[in-house]
């Protein structure tokens, strides 16, 4: 029984947590992919930036959380989201819009976004330093231990308050995205631009406004994902580089330009990561005595050693590119 609880803690809960973060990042990437038609490499740093805004606000108003009974970082999240969304729009105005007006190829846009990545990275490290920071410096991180009603279960299911908030927020943002895309005028315009930009333009859709809305959504989701992830673990400036590959993998797995696909892709990548670094030998341990002599039980039966975790999203990416380049939900290939 304890083995199953261990599995739930190590695979299901952490997979769902990291999967939610990937999903929120991938929604933004896939929207930008669909509407502006380039891979936005600066997305990881927009997440870090959002998290830093939240952290700075937490340092400024450390008491704000206690008034409501939630972690201060989470209370500050809407402000951080707003700030990051505004920065995203400004970045587009200063760096991407002039290039779009010059009609450059998507690859040049990708390059420009790498330039933006480096600029953001430089600024974040200049002002934030390079050490890891913790949101819970003034308050206590609530950790819930849930005991299961079984006799032989001595371990407990462990879930932290930031993880619960992360799940709830992901759920909320999925519904919000669904509502925006299907019920509002802007959402319909976004889908039209994503399907056929020329047709959308001649039928009177204001591409400029659609672009701004896209950046607002992508920026605020990036800030939320970055903040919630750093609430759960810690805030590191090199967060972004480790997130970038899984997020792209998630967006491509789900089908580029396909927000629901990106959500699925995020969880696929998240669970694949936790499943492959999980030590499967734990399940064999109870049967240790009844195993045959020749079967020597290794202490570590993880599919991928933890230090090679980054190969998992890459492997998923390669497999999907070989077998189904359109992704699970038929995204855009060109």
């Amino acid at each position, binding site marked *: 029984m304890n083995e199953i609880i261990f599995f739930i803690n190590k695979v299901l809960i952490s997979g769902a947590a990291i999967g939610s973060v990937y999903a929120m990042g991938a929604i933004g990437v896939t929207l930008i992919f669909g509407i502006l038609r380039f891979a936005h490499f600066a997305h990881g740093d927009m997440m870090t930036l959002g998290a830093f805004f939240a952290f700075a606000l937490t340092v400024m108003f450390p008491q704000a959380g206690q008034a409501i009974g939630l972690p201060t970082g989470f209370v500050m999240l809407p402000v951080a989201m707003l700030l990051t969304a505004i920065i995203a729009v400004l970045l587009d105005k200063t760096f991407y819009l002039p290039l779009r007006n010059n009609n450059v190829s998507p690859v040049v846009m990708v390059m420009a976004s790498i330039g933006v990545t480096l600029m953001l990275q*430089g600024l974040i490290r200049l002002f934030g330093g390079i050490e890891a920071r913790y949101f819970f410096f003034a308050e206590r991180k609530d950790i819930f231990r849930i005991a299961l009603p079984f006799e032989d279960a001595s371990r407990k299911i462990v879930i932290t308050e930031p993880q619960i908030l992360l799940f709830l927020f992901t759920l909320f943002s999925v519904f919000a995205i669904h509502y925006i895309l299907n019920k509002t005028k802007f959402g319909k315009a976004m889908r039209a631009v994503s399907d056929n930009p020329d047709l959308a333009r001649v039928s009177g859709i204001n591409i400029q406004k659609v672009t701004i809305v896209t950046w607002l959504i992508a920026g605020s989701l990036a800030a939320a994902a970055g903040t919630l992830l750093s609430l759960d673990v810690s805030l590191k400036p090199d967060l972004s580089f480790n997130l970038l590959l899984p997020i792209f993998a998630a967006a491509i797995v789900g089908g580029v330009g396909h927000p629901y696909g990106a959500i699925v892709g995020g969880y696929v990548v998240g669970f694949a990561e936790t499943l492959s670094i999980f030590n499967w030998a734990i399940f064999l341990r109870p049967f240790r005595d009844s195993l045959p002599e020749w079967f020597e039980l290794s202490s570590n039966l993880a599919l991928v050693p933890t230090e090679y975790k980054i190969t998992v999203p890459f492997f998923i990416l390669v497999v999907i590119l070989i077998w189904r380049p359109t992704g699970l939900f038929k995204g855009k290939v060109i």
Partner: protein
Amino acid sequence: MNTLLTGYKKEALIVSFCGVLIALVFANFGSAFGLRMLTEIACFTIIALGLTIQWGFAGLFNAGIMGFIALAAFVSMLVSYPVNEAFWQSDFSSQLGWVFAKLLLGVAIIWGINSLPTLRNRIKLRRLLVVIAIAITYLVFMQNLAPVARGIETGAGFIGGFGLPVWMGWIAGGIVAGILAWFVGHICLGLRSDYLAIATLGIAEIIKAVLKNADWLTRGTLTVSPLPWPVETPGEIGFIASRAQYLSVTIVIIAVIFWLLQRAYSAPWGRMIRAIRDNELSSAAMGKDVNGRRLEVFILGSVLMGVGGAALVTFNSIFDPSGFLPLHHTFLIWVMVILGGAGNNTGTLIGTVIVYIVWVMSEPATLWVFEGIKHLGLEWFAWQVPNDFDSRALQMRVFLIGLTITLVLRFAPSGLIPEKIREH
């Protein structure tokens, strides 16, 4: 005649500017430092020429140059580092041989299943069997490798090298980088252009992770040094003479590559590549194998990156997997190429010289500026700077590299020396 002169006036100006920069460095920092910088520039030039083929000739985005450099440097180290007798005399050498023999057997079985005649028409069954075979091979390999790797690490340290001449190592490094490029290009080149960027970025991180953690192979964070040189080492004939020799070796390599590239650029092959870059549809309509040509270019460029990377790391004389940084080994090279002028070999050369000198000089310059800020801050606002102020100040260079990329793309997309479009 007059137009020809004005056409080259800008080039002449820029070249003499480079000359002045180099002379200033020699005058201020001495010839040992100057030669070291020039040799590094030469190595970076080989890498940048590789990138200018990929990006300038064919418009392929390689965001993982670091991976190709690191892999080639490792292969070069493996080939040329002196033989580790302790490893070859221990039992682990034969055990390691067995592990790899099993891996080969597994690969042979996978290949056999894939080309079995009875399965040719049952695609789903074949795929399933191949996946199962790959999974079993992988698991058996990992389980067998782990104890052997641990044994090597506790006993002999790492497997050492083969003790072959250094030039063989460089060539081997280039070839392995080319094989990696074939693998990546084969998967990504037929798809959206951004996918290549994502895949190369990923593979670079993976290669770094493997080199960093596979201690039995690379000594990981313990680093391998001193790497053997193709010329006499500073210990034998002094810094200046040996660096000058190394520099001349790399300059010969550059001269050969440069001559070949100039020939290729105006040859029918080069024209075809540029036609594909400028208008993919029409060249495909004229019967050119677009993806095949791109794969060619991608492999060729990566081979050059491999050779250059191997030369660079050999010159530094230390193989340190954690020393490979995306900023230094990918994006700096990007700036060299796009600032100098993509698709233009001369431009790349000049871009490399200018950008590398500015990069080297930017470290003391940034520290000096931030020292001033610190001083003023203390004097005017009694501002106590954080402890890691200097390391933070150096992050300013990351910002400047990014700013340069975006500004060049926006205001001078064709670089300092634009590619000359010849009309026929």
